C-alpha cells in the first residue's frame, strides 16, 4: 500500500483553502489583504442562499467553493420524521457566487433525534476536504463521500451508524494524509478510519471505546524525533497513532476529562513539537503535550496544563501565543510556552448569559488581524499581540446563525450562515 508522507504545514496550495482551518490546519491565511469592514452596501461581493442550514465551514479550490448543508428534518417547517433528512454538497463559482452543482444524499440510518445540543449545530457540521482531484464530504451516518470537481460521485464508504452516548451527532472534518483520507467516526463507530482517496477502500480502523464524545478533527504532526503521528484527542486522553496502520504509538492522560469538541492543534513552541488540546465539560482544561518518541520524552509528555479551556471553537497558535474566543465570547491569550494567561476580556456582545452560546466558529488570522465570527452578532476584527483590541464589528442583516469558521479567499472571506454563503471583500 503506497503511503506518501506529507510535510507538515506544506506549502499553500495556490491560495486554496482546502479543509477545516485551511491548508496547514492552522487557521492562518496565505492571503494578507482582506478588508476590515463590510456591510450589505460595502464589500459584499455576492450572497448565495443555501438549501438548508449547517455549521460546516466552506472550503475552496481552483476557483470553486464547496459547502455542505441539510434539509428535511431539524429545520423549521419540516416534519418530525428523521428519515426525511437529506444532506447536500454544493459547488459554487468563487467569482460569481453562482451554484455550479448540488449533490443530495438521503440518510441511511436512524439519525440522532433533533433535541438537546444537536439543535445547536444540526446535521451538516463536518467541513469538507478538497484536493486537486476530489472533494471529500463526511456526512455522518450516511458515510464518507468523494466527488470529482464536476460533481460526479466517485465513491461512498460506510463509517458506522451508531450514536455517541448523548446523541449529539458528529462534527469532525476529514483529514487528508498522503494517499488517504482519515475520519474521526467517534460517534458512528468509536473509531478513527482511514480510506484510500482514489477508491474509498478502508485501509485501517483504530477502534477504542475511550473515543466516545471526541468531536474534534485529528492532526498530523511530526514529533521532535522526526516521526509523524496522527494525534487524536478524546475525553481524558490523547492518542498518537501510526498513520500507516492506525496502531497506537503512545497515549497520555489529559486534564480535560469531559467531551472534547475543539480540534487538536500542533506546532513548534520553544523549539519543541507540541500538541495543544482544550475542551471538556464539566471536567475541563487545556494541555500542551510534547510529540514524538514511543517512550516519554525528556521533560515528560506534558509540557503544561491549565484549568482554563475553550469548549467549542478551536484555538489558534501564532508566535508562541495561543488565542481563543470561547463559546461565551471571552477572548483569552495564553503564553504557549507555559500556559500562563497574558490577557483576557469579553467581546462587547449584546447576547449574554443563560444558555446562549454566542460563538461556535474558530478564529482565523489574516495578515496581522484576527477575525472572530460570532453566531448572531457579526465578525469582530481584532488586533494581534499580547493585548488584542476590537477594531471593527461587521454584521450582515438577516443572516441567520453563523456557526462556521470563515474561509479566507483572495482579497476577502467566505462567510457561511444557516441561510446563505457570502463572499465579502474586494471583487475578484
Amino acid at each position, binding site marked *: 500500500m503506497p503511503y506518501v508522507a506529507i510535510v507538515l504545514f506544506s506549502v499553500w496550495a495556490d491560495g486554496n483553502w482546502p479543509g477545516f482551518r485551511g491548508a496547514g490546519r492552522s487557521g492562518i491565511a496565505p492571503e494578507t489583504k482582506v478588508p476590515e469592514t463590510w456591510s450589505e452596501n460595502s464589500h459584499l461581493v455576492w450572497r448565495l442562499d443555501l438549501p438548508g442550514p449547517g455549521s460546516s465551514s466552506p472550503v475552496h479550490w481552483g476557483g470553486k467553493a464547496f459547502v455542505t448543508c441539510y434539509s428535511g428534518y431539524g429545520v423549521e417547517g419540516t416534519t418530525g420524521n428523521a428519515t426525511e433528512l437529506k444532506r447536500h454538497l454544493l459547488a459554487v463559482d468563487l467569482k460569481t457566487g453562482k451554484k455550479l452543482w448540488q449533490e443530495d444524499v438521503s440518510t441511511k440510518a436512524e439519525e440522532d433525534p433533533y433535541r438537546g445540543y444537536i439543535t445547536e449545530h444540526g446535521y451538516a457540521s463536518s467541513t469538507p476536504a478538497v484536493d486537486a482531484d476530489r472533494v471529500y464530504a463526511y456526512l455522518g451516518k450516511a458515510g464518507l463521500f468523494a466527488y470529482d470537481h464536476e460533481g460526479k460521485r466517485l465513491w461512498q464508504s460506510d463509517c458506522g451508524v451508531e450514536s*455517541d*452516548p448523548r446523541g449529539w451527532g458528529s462534527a469532525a472534518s476529514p483529514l487528508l494524509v498522503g494517499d488517504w483520507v482519515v475520519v474521526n467516526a467517534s460517534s458512528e463507530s468509536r473509531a478513527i478510519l482511514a480510506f484510500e482517496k482514489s477508491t474509498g477502500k478502508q485501509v485501517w480502523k483504530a477502534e*477504542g*471505546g*475511550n473515543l466516545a464524545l471526541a468531536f474534534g478533527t485529528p492532526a498530523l504532526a511530526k514529533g521532535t524525533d522526526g516521526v509523524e503521528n496522527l494525534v487524536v484527542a478524546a475525553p481524558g*486522553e490523547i492518542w498518537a*497513532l*501510526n498513520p500507516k*496502520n492506525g496502531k497506537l*504509538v503512545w497515549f497520555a492522560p489529559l486534564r480535560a476529562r469531559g467531551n472534547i469538541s475543539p480540534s487538536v492543534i500542533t506546532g513548534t513552541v520553544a523549539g519543541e513539537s507540541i500538541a495543544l488540546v482544550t475542551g471538556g465539560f464539566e471536567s475541563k482544561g487545556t494541555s500542551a503535550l510534547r510529540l514524538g518518541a514511543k517512550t516519554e520524552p525528556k521533560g515528560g509528555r506534558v509540557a503544561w496544563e491549565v484549568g482554563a479551556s475553550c469548549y467549542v471553537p478551536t484555538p489558534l497558535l501564532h508566535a508562541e501565543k495561543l488565542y481563543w474566543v470561547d463559546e461565551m465570547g471571552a477572548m483569552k491569550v495564553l503564553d504557549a510556552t507555559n500556559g500562563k494567561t497574558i490577557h483576557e476580556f469579553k467581546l462587547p456582545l449584546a447576547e449574554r448569559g443563560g444558555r446562549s452560546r454566542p460563538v461556535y466558529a474558530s478564529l482565523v488570522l489574516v495578515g496581522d488581524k484576527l477575525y472572530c465570527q460570532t453566531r448572531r452578532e457579526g465578525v469582530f476584527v481584532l488586533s494581534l499581540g499580547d493585548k488584542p483590541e476590537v477594531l471593527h464589528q461587521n454584521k450582515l442583516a438577516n443572516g441567520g446563525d453563523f456557526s462556521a469558521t470563515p474561509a479566507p479567499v483572495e482579497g476577502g472571506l467566505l462567510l457561511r450562515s444557516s441561510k446563505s454563503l457570502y463572499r465579502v471583500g474586494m471583487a475578484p
Partner: protein
Amino acid sequence: MKLIGLIFLMALAAGCGGPAGPKGKAEKDRPPRPAMDN
C-alpha cells in the same frame, strides 16, 4: 418537593442531549483504545 427535583433533573438531562444511547456495541465490549504499534 422530591417530584419537583426529579422533574428538574429530567429537564436538565433533556437539555444536555437526552438519554440517547449507543446503538451498537456497549462501551464495555470495546477495547479502550487501539492496539499498540510494536
